[in-house]
């Protein structure tokens, strides 16, 4: 439901706190642990959950997310189980907006309409289809509109302002501004011109703007949060799993600590 996404951004606007968008790979390291990790994020007050759907060939992802996808696939993650995961999360988080971050072939293989129908039924709120630029997205956008699922699109530093209108026409939910060229992964420093870019996007597209790629510390979170509606943290959370392989309790502890750190608690 696009409404849940709207509500979370409205809420963060009224409180003045940016929306904390947390990325985890669905089914990493396995279904049950993944569900518990999502529960921890909900307990700590995540604003929007972004679930990466593991793909065999994640060409836009850095090593951290590649390995996460491998762990999830090795432990039997499938499309149906990713829908199941959403259903389970819904039980304890009825108002939490949840989107999938996925590669297009996984949607295409099931059939766009069927995939979107199953996703909506499970309680998903939107799709970010990483390798589906707006030029290729007409049929998926139509299918999503029918089921009231949002289509989140990316704006990159290489995106010229002339494309904003096209992206704005297809996008719903929010815009994901990828703050630099490159694959996913933690970074030490942030690019300097985020504020200006976000400003430009806001002027052209009437949707909240979230910023992501590489954010991993509280100071970065704060800095980005001052200019964006949402802050996406991915690899820094996934690393809580990777660094504690085989020790689910430690994973949970690390994830909780990281979430608290990011939120300044």
């Amino acid at each position, binding site marked *: 439901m696009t409404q849940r996404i709207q509500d979370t951004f409205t809420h963060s606007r009224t409180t003045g706190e940016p929306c904390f968008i947390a990325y985890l790979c669905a089914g990493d390291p396995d279904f049950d642990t993944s569900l518990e990790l999502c529960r921890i994020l909900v307990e700590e007050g995540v604003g929007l959950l972004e679930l990466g759907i593991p793909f065999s*060939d994640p060409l836009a992802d850095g090593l951290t997310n590649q390995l996460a996808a491998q762990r999830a696939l090795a432990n039997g993650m499938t499309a149906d189980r990713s829908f199941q995961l959403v259903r389970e999360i819904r039980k304890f988080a009825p108002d939490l907006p949840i989107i999938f971050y996925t590669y297009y072939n996984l949607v295409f*293989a099931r059939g766009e309409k069927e995939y979107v129908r199953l996703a909506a039924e499970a309680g998903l709120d939107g799709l970010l289809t990483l390798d589906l630029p707006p030029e290729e997205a007409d049929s998926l956008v139509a299918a999503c509109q029918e089921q009231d699922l949002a289509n989140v699109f990316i*704006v990159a530093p290489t995106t010229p302002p002339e*494309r904003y209108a096209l992206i704005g026409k297809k996008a719903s939910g929010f815009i994901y501004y990828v703050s630099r*060229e490159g*694959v996913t992964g933690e970074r030490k420093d942030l690019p300097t011109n985020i504020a200006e870019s976000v400003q430009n996007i806001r002027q052209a597209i009437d949707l909240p703007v979230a910023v992501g790629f590489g954010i991993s510390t509280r100071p970065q979170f704060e800095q980005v949060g001052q200019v964006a509606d949402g802050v996406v943290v991915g690899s820094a959370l996934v690393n809580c799993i990777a660094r504690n392989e085989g020790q689910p309790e430690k994973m949970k502890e690390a994830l909780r600590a990281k979430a608290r750190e990011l939120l300044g608690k």
Partner: protein
Amino acid sequence: MSSLLFPSSETDGPRFQHPDVTGRFGPYGGMFVPETLVTPLLDLEKAYREVREDPAFQDELALLLKEYAGRPTELYFAERLTKQLGGAKVYFKREDLLHTGAHKINNALGQALLAKRMGKKRIIAETGAGQHGIATASVCAKLGLECVIYMGAEDMRRQSLNVYRMRLCGAEVKGVESGQKTLKEAINEAMRDWVTNVRSTHYILGSALGSHPYPMIVRDFHRVIGRETRAQILEKEGRLPDELVACVGGGSNAIGFFFAFLDDPQVRLTGVEAGGRGIEKGEHAARFEGGKLGILQGCKTYILQNEEGQIDLTHSVSAGLDYAAVGPEHAFYRDQNRIHFASASDEKALHAFRECARVEGIIPALESSHGFAYAIERAKELSSDKILIVNMSGRGDKDVQEAARVMGEL
């Protein structure tokens, strides 16, 4: 000189309506890439369309193709083989005689010149068999460009000669350890590099696959193969051939060879995929036999994948054919019954590899041996007044050690 490549009257012809403005060959192709790459790809298309019509660029490329790469390549009548098979007359188009040992240099030269035009100083490329890698490394050495080659660790093992050659030419060869450590993973890693360094770097994709505009660019730079063949066979035989045969990995040597004959319905066009150890999941790379429509690495085409859309493992004795997707233009012409497809097993390819050496004294690349394997059987079925041309896309020097190992002779 430019007439050798792209006489501008020709690029207006009906075959050039594909890809269309959206990068499609009918339902295939397209531009399925992350947003970061969309604008660089559109810029690349624009720059390419400019040089395509630019006589100065075409002259520069034609001169390099002649003096550096060694074009034109011969059309060779395999007389002894023809006698032995007792069927159609067999010719070889000798792309194996090109500098660096395969057709790949046609495209590497074209794209490197294009990169220079675009002001890019750093080149990256993927490679499977190492032929595209060595072609790119050589051209970068010649043109003074920085060069990084991504290659699967398994391919580095089985094509180690080419790894050393690339390094000699000053390229950095980066091994890729993910997945099955072959061509597909090398492309993933090259795309990750490109997405990160796109402002300074041009990605010279080595086959007629991936996102638009690559299938078009790579095809065009290889069209010289078919153009030469057409003129040569008309001169030697006074008529067009009955069948052309080429191996198909991504499909670059095949589409470059076939393109000039697409409008001659009497010429049968046959692409040969890697049959591996047999057409079972994970054992081959025959996309038209075991694959279905999907999207991989920028392109909608036939792909070996499971029901979930996860990409299957592949196998071929030849690194250059060991890939899960096929170039979109091949899928398009297959639907129209214009290009036909067959597959050859590892075993048949290895047999053909030996036969070609034994009977003609020419050692073909294991990739080309797949086309040749089909041609041996096909020539026997055809009468002696028929003409069959095989594209010898590359030479087998790189393969002798691995072939000897596989055949248990080392």
